[in-house]
């Protein structure tokens, strides 16, 4: 309780903190709601500017954007069948048919309420569980455990978001390959620099993320406009009744638990959470045939889980320094800008920072309910703004953000190149989150692998002599095997 009060005091002690909290809340909701933008885009654009804030303010701002943005992407998923983020994709499976049936308000109402419930649940668990996990992590987690955890996370990440398993593998593999550009983790030798000083520093992940998410989305929407396939949304404003919520109470509870534990995985936590929760909801539903045709339960399952994953994703970030998803990967960048290494020591050395973030995330989830209801009546109408105006604005903001990271025009070139490649790859069914997570986790993974091999005298079997790394290796093999089995079963 005293820690909670410490965080609350830290949050409200400075007027600027409150301004940033409110700005992050609205910014995340707005960016998550607008086609072509999402919370990751906003966080990435703001990342270079967080250097002007203190560390607590910077991380708190990104955390609030994370919470509100994960919900915000549900709106475009429901209204346009365009998920704001990958974790909102299952929301579109039933949310968009509900819009087509004139029930958009019920879908958005269910999304906002269940997002608030899932997020608040995970925030409370996060406040209680992060410290014990951090204490355990210092003792139990070394480079072998870190390496096998990353391997497991990448194996899970490769199964989600792509057209098929093989393209998921290729997406993750490409990200890991891009991460090898620069210098090697053991001796600092130049790798794949092609004689360029820029390449020697490695590919900066800010322009990469902007390119594969924001720029590629603008290109996709531009294509739809060019082909005459772009259509304005229908909006209905009814909220779900209490009875409708009561009927899906089991789905809410199950999805919150699935979401939280999925968020713990250092891979695509919220995306996996949403897909897993959706499939479990369909499996356990009395009317599985309604899923995909406008079942409220589908929206509830997806949105509860993806917001519950936000608290879960903060635990590996704060306890181990591992990002749980794309936005937490951006938070790693914010930590680096302020010279803080995320990991178990953060809970000891920067206790107030951690608790300000926890408290801010809790209140952000509570605020989502009120603001989400408000948004469903007002901000949603902004979506009528033509993409012919939104698109160029997105490109401009992204250009500024990519340039501002290191004051290099080369970063802007990288962003647009990533955008074009991202557009082509998305059309071919590859996974953009897979590429980004491969890029982030690849760097950490190689470093952990080098230390592991040095520790274990270059014996791979040594990984099985340590209980946690052995379990994680077995889980990785099982995960790959299961994904392979599912992929082969689909082909028959």
């Amino acid at each position, binding site marked *: 309780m005293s820690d909670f009060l410490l965080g609350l005091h830290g949050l409200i002690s400075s007027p600027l903190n409150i301004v940033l909290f409110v700005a992050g809340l609205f910014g995340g909701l707005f960016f998550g709601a607008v086609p072509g933008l999402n919370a990751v885009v906003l966080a990435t654009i703001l990342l270079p500017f967080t250097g002007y804030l203190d560390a607590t303010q910077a991380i708190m701002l990104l955390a609030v954007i994370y919470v509100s943005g994960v919900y915000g992407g549900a709106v475009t998923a429901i209204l346009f069948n365009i998920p704001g983020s990958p974790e909102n994709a299952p929301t579109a499976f039933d949310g968009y048919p509900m819009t087509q049936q004139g029930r958009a308000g019920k879908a958005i109402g269910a999304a906002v309420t269940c997002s608030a419930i899932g997020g608040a649940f995970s925030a409370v668990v996060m406040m209680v569980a992060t410290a014990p996990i951090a204490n355990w992590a210092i003792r139990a987690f070394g480079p072998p455990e870190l390496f096998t955890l990353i391997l497991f996370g990448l194996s899970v990440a490769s199964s989600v978001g792509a057209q098929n398993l093989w393209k998921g593998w290729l997406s993750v593999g490409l990200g890991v390959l891009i991460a090898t550009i620069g210098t090697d983790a*053991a001796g600092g030798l130049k790798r794949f620099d092609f004689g360029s000083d820029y390449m020697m520093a490695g590919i900066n992940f800010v322009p990469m993320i902007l390119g594969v998410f924001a720029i590629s989305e603008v290109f996709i929407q531009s294509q739809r406009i060019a082909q005459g396939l772009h259509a304005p949304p229908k909006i209905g404003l009814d909220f779900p009744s209490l009875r409708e919520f009561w009927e899906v109470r089991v789905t809410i509870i199950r999805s919150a638990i699935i979401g939280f534990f999925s968020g713990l995985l250092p891979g695509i936590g919220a995306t996996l959470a949403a897909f897993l929760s959706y499939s479990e909801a369909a499996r356990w539903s009395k009317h599985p045939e309604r899923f995909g045709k406008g079942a409220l339960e589908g929206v509830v399952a997806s949105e509860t889980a993806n917001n519950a994953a936000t608290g879960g994703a903060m635990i590996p970030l704060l306890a181990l320094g591992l990002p749980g998803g794309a936005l937490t990967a951006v938070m790693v960048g914010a930590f680096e800008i302020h010279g803080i290494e995320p990991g178990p020591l953060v809970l000891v050395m920067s206790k107030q920072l951690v608790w300000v973030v926890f408290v801010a995330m809790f209140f952000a989830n509570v605020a989502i309910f009120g603001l989400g209801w408000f948004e469903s009546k007002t901000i949603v109408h902004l979506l009528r703004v033509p993409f*012919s105006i939104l698109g160029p604005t997105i490109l401009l903001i992204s250009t500024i953000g990519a340039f501002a990271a290191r004051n290099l025009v080369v970063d802007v070139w990288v962003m647009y190149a990533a955008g074009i490649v991202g557009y082509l790859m998305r059309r071919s069914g590859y996974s953009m989150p897979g590429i980004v997570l491969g890029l982030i986790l690849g760097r950490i993974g190689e470093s952990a692998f080098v230390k592991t091999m040095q520790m274990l005298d270059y014996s791979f079997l040594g990984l099985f002599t340590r209980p946690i790394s052995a379990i994680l290796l077995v889980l990785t093999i099982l995960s790959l095997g299961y994904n392979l089995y599912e992929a082969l079963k689909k082909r028959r």
Partner: protein
Amino acid sequence: MAEDLRRIKGRSQLRPLVELAIWLTLVIGMWVYSYQFDRKLQSYAFGPVAWPRAVLLFIALAAVIAFAADWRRNQAAEVNPAADIVRTPRTPTRLGANLRLLTAFALPLGYVWLLPHAGYFATTPFFLGGFMRLLGLTRWPVVIALSLAIYAVMLLLFSKLLFIPLPTGNWPGFYDFSNWLLVRIGSG
């Protein structure tokens, strides 16, 4: 119908082949380049090439499997061709749509090329207006007004409030214009 079948069949068989070719070209190219930094390290027996080469092998394997899976699916489609025909809407302006898409790629790239030369401050309103026109905003007064409005908001937000340094250009005249504007808005 027969023409649709031939067109779709040809395209379906070509795409996996093109993707495989791209992946293998990437793998082979980077594998060959890796010999440039293939050195022994005292501190690390595997050296700097082990990890990237393992990743390249993984990518090559996944690309071959993906190709084989797509090939088998296409073969199955040949047995049951009717099921595979997806009638995509053939809009009369398909060529126009492709040209617009190519322009959507080219315009930002042209803008980025101009940035270090002509500067952000001189080029941005034209980029905004051009892209709005490309996306279908046809009335010139509206395009010009919106471009200038968005440009002004970005200028105030990033240059005046946040003091973010943006390219001023190095071509004669453009550098002077950029600095004049920055002084005028009070951030130069």
